[in-house]
């Protein structure tokens, strides 16, 4: 935990190149957030009114939709971001984003790259954002809640599920993913917990043999996925019996201030 926090601080320091240093004492006034989770955190800690740019995916809270979008952020459109004239750009720490951050620094815009893959990344990211916006106190109280969620011992699993990300080829969620944590906290065993990666291609027969009680899919449409009607998928008992959990991606697909709500709702759905 300490190490992870140190890493975030180092990343923050590393991201602040000389041209930006003069801003460092002052809090950011014009922020572009390039990840829905960061947008949610910034609103939650009372810095939402300072957001001047977001991605097309940033749909929560509803007030976020009033902020101009700078595109889908995959990869970030540098000029669209720069045109918002930000003094801070918050990016998710990934390969293409590292390159984008470097470009933004080159034109004198302060950037920060934060890890946000799992529940335990939430509190450090929140504290970092609180520090950058001068909202340290609000950030600390949110971080404490998120830390306790991440540190909460999971209840005994009463049911099992598989998260199907894609059907052909079948790609499922493994232990490395945030969704695996969500399921565990909601009292469900991910039948692919033994896969260390966040997601992986698997054989349909493995899904059938592991016989999960639920098939969980992330979808905003709310309808049962088309593969439910494919003959080969009917070898899976949960598909035959129609045990689908269609989870809205906005709430379930990203770690954020609403992760606790997501756990609660998932628990409710599993208890049906």
């Amino acid at each position: 935990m300490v190490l992870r926090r140190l890493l975030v601080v180092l990343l923050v320091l590393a991201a602040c190149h000389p041209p930006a240093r003069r801003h460092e004492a002052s809090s950011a006034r014009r922020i572009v957030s390039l990840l829905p989770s960061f947008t949610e955190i910034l609103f939650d800690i009372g810095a939402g009114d300072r957001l001047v740019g977001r991605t097309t995916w940033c749909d929560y809270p509803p007030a976020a939709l009033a902020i101009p979008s700078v595109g889908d952020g995959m990869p970030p459109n540098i000029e669209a971001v720069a045109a918002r004239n930000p003094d801070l750009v918050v990016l998710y720490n990934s390969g293409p984003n590292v390159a984008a951050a470097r470009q933004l620094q080159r034109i004198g815009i302060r950037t920060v790259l934060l890890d946000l893959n799992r529940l335990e990344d939430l509190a450090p990211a929140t504290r970092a954002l609180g520090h950058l916006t001068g909202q340290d106190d609000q950030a600390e109280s949110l971080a404490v809640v998120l830390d306790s969620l991440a540190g909460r011992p999971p209840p005994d699993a009463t049911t099992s599920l598989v998260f199907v990300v894609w059907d052909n080829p079948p790609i499922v969620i493994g232990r490395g993913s945030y969704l695996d944590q969500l399921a565990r906290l909601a009292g469900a065993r991910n039948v692919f917990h033994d896969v260390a990666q966040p997601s992986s291609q698997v054989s349909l027969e493995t899904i059938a043999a592991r016989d999960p009680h639920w098939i969980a899919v992330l979808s905003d449409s709310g309808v049962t996925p088309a593969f439910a009607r494919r003959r080969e998928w009917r070898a899976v008992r949960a598909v035959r019996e129609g045990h689908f959990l269609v989870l809205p991606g906005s709430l379930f697909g990203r770690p954020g201030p609403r992760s606790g709500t997501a756990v609660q709702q998932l628990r409710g759905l599993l208890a049906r």
Partner: protein
Amino acid sequence: MKWVLLCAIALLALVASVILGPAAVPFGQLLHSDIVWNLRAPRAILAFLVGGSLGVAGAGLQALVRNPLADPFLLGLSGGAGLGAVLAIALHWSGPWALPLAAFVGAVVALGLVYRLGLIGGAALDPRILLLGGVAIGAFAAAITTAIVSLADAAELRNAFLWLWGGLSSASWDAVLVVALYAPLPLAVLFAASRPLDLLALGEEPAGYLGADVEAVKRRVYLAASLLTAAAVAVSGVIGFVGLVVPHVARLTWGHRHRALLPAAFIGGGALLAIADTLARTVVAPRELPVGVVTALIGVPVFALLLRRWTIA
């Protein structure tokens, strides 16, 4: 003897792909298991049919364009199929068969365009223009595909590329039935063209003197091989190397006579893909490898070995 060995390997490959898998099915329950009956058996048979079709299509096209590099997917079909698949996902065409159908239509449209380009110099189908047209149409379709993927909102589009790398995950008895009803006609057309294809190897003019209706044969072979490949891509994506390597291996062992070469390419291609798919499902279980990776990993060394023996002899 060669035939007995080949058939034994094919039979062994089919049996192995039904017995082996990431899910532990007790030996005694093999015949009663849902996993074996509804997942492994159709997948093994589909792998065999697709591999065989690709082998024959590759052998036919290599003879037609007289180019050892010809591969069933070289002539623009993978680009067309990929565009169809990505369109189906981007436009949210629903239905369990939307993706394979769209891929098939995309491949057939690409095939039509390449065919039209091949006739550009007049009534004679020019193999060189066919190759160039295939590469051009494939690149064009790939560019449109990439544009759609980068402009569309759906994050799931990246998964369309995974589908495109090939795999037999969607195998079911329905898919087996479709291929088993569809493939015999183009296969029969190709087998019936064995003798003219032998003559074509001498060059178009000599083949004409020896009594082959060169233009008709070229068209029939091109259309049959491409339609066979289009069906393969619809049910299993783009599986590389089978259509390139198997015909060469068959030629090294059975010689250049297509009457023997084409059946050998069918059985050999089927066996190779059945073995490759079994490995893809089992070696990193519970994870799975894209089958195209395995066909390349097996196919290329075997090919290199045979090539070495052949050039030394």
